[in-house]
């Protein structure tokens, strides 16, 4: 009896918009979850002065700059350094000791957004004495986010939260050792990202580019439907070396996936898994 069984005009428009974006710009949002995506598009419409999704679609098709603008709304970066501090404690306990046995390391931060997690991991690796032999691939689909990540400049006002997170994550130094404060911004130590490669990569359309020992992909797959989650987990499984590690967001699960049985659970609460 529900209205939901019938497809609404807005949903038709949303599907057509995502199809148009895919055909015109090769960005594939077609398998993102509907409800969040709808919110983001409605927000973009309001900000971009479009009365309907169709109007937005028309602008996106005819003005590449409108697409760049929409992309910022579709991939809203919301992240913080050392978010969920226990995740990093879990990494220190379960993952770093094993990573330390490899002569060289390749680590993939998938969906790195504006880079907060990349710098957090780099700090962790540095404190574990592993940063110099690590290559970190930090990938995202949003070029503006990647540019911000490359710069490593974050608002100074966030440092209080990040410092508390860092300490809760088992940080061993003064957090301020890692950045220089100036003009309301915190510029992170360039040596942290000497071995970081920031690159454009889509979990929806691209393939595996390296064999890695550890992949961290947190709060990215919650925006994917099950089909796209399956694709992403397939990429991770393929990229990880034998007995490689996978870290997910604190409410993410691999239980529904056919890849679920191919990983063992290392730390359930911290969503740390290891390839069988």
């Amino acid at each position, binding site marked *: 009896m529900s209205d939901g069984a019938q497809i609404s005009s807005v949903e038709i428009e949303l599907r057509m918009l995502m199809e148009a974006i895919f055909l015109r710009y090769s960005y594939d949002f077609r398998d993102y979850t509907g409800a969040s995506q709808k919110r983001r598009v409605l927000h973009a419409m309001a900000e971009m002065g479009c009365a309907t999704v169709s109007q937005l679609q028309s602008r996106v098709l005819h003005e590449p700059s409108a697409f760049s603008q929409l992309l910022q709304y579709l991939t809203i970066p*919301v992240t913080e350094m050392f978010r969920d501090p226990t995740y990093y404690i879990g990494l220190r306990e379960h993952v770093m000791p094993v990573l330390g046995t490899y002569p060289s390391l390749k680590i993939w931060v998938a969906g790195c957004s504006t880079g907060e997690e990349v710098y957090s991991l780099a700090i962790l690796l540095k404190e574990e004495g592993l940063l110099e032999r690590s290559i970190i691939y930090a990938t995202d689909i949003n070029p503006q986010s990647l540019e911000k990540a490359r710069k490593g400049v974050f608002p100074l006002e966030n440092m209080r939260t990040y410092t508390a997170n860092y300490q809760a994550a088992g940080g061993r130094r003064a957090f301020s050792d890692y950045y220089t404060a100036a003009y309301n911004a915190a510029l992170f130590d360039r040596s942290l990202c000497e071995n970081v490669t920031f690159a454009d990569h889509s979990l929806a359309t691209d393939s595996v580019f390296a064999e890695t020992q550890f992949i961290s992909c947190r709060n990215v797959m919650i925006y994917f439907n099950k089909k796209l989650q399956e694709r992403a987990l397939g990429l991770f499984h393929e990229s990880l070396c034998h007995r490689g590690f996978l870290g997910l967001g604190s409410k993410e699960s691999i239980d529904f996936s056919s890849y679920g049985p191919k990983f063992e659970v290392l730390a359930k609460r911290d969503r740390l898994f290891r390839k069988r």
Partner: protein
Amino acid sequence: MRPDPSLDMALQGRQFEAVVIGASAGGVNALMQVLPALPRGYRLPIVVVLHVRSGRQNQLVDVFQQRVQLPVREAGDKEDVIPGTLYFAPAGYHLLLENERSFSLSCDAPLHFARPAIDITMESAADVYGAAWRASCSPAPMTTGRKAWPPSAGRAA
């Protein structure tokens, strides 16, 4: 608190698929009065979004499971919405309902300083269930611009 009679009239002859309840920290006590009264075998899913500090959010499932006769769970990403189950939104995430009658989570920015935000869950529930849902806000109704009915239905207890 006695239900508004106009609410009874509005409800008459309608079929419901889900109950969505939003409340601020004070709502915990109100829910403690309402939810334990539900009988075992109650057939609707109940989705609760509480604006409480995130430390307390993690305890809601345990606290309510001791008092409520229905299974109580934290709503998980991409999980089906199971009838007769009481769900709480997890700490630090927005909770949305999807057309497939499943949950999804989002880390989008807090709304009015809240994550989970009541409005976001309510709006997505309105999209999915249309008229076939009940919305309750306690103690104060939220303004969401959703297609909720009836506008006066802002009472949980």
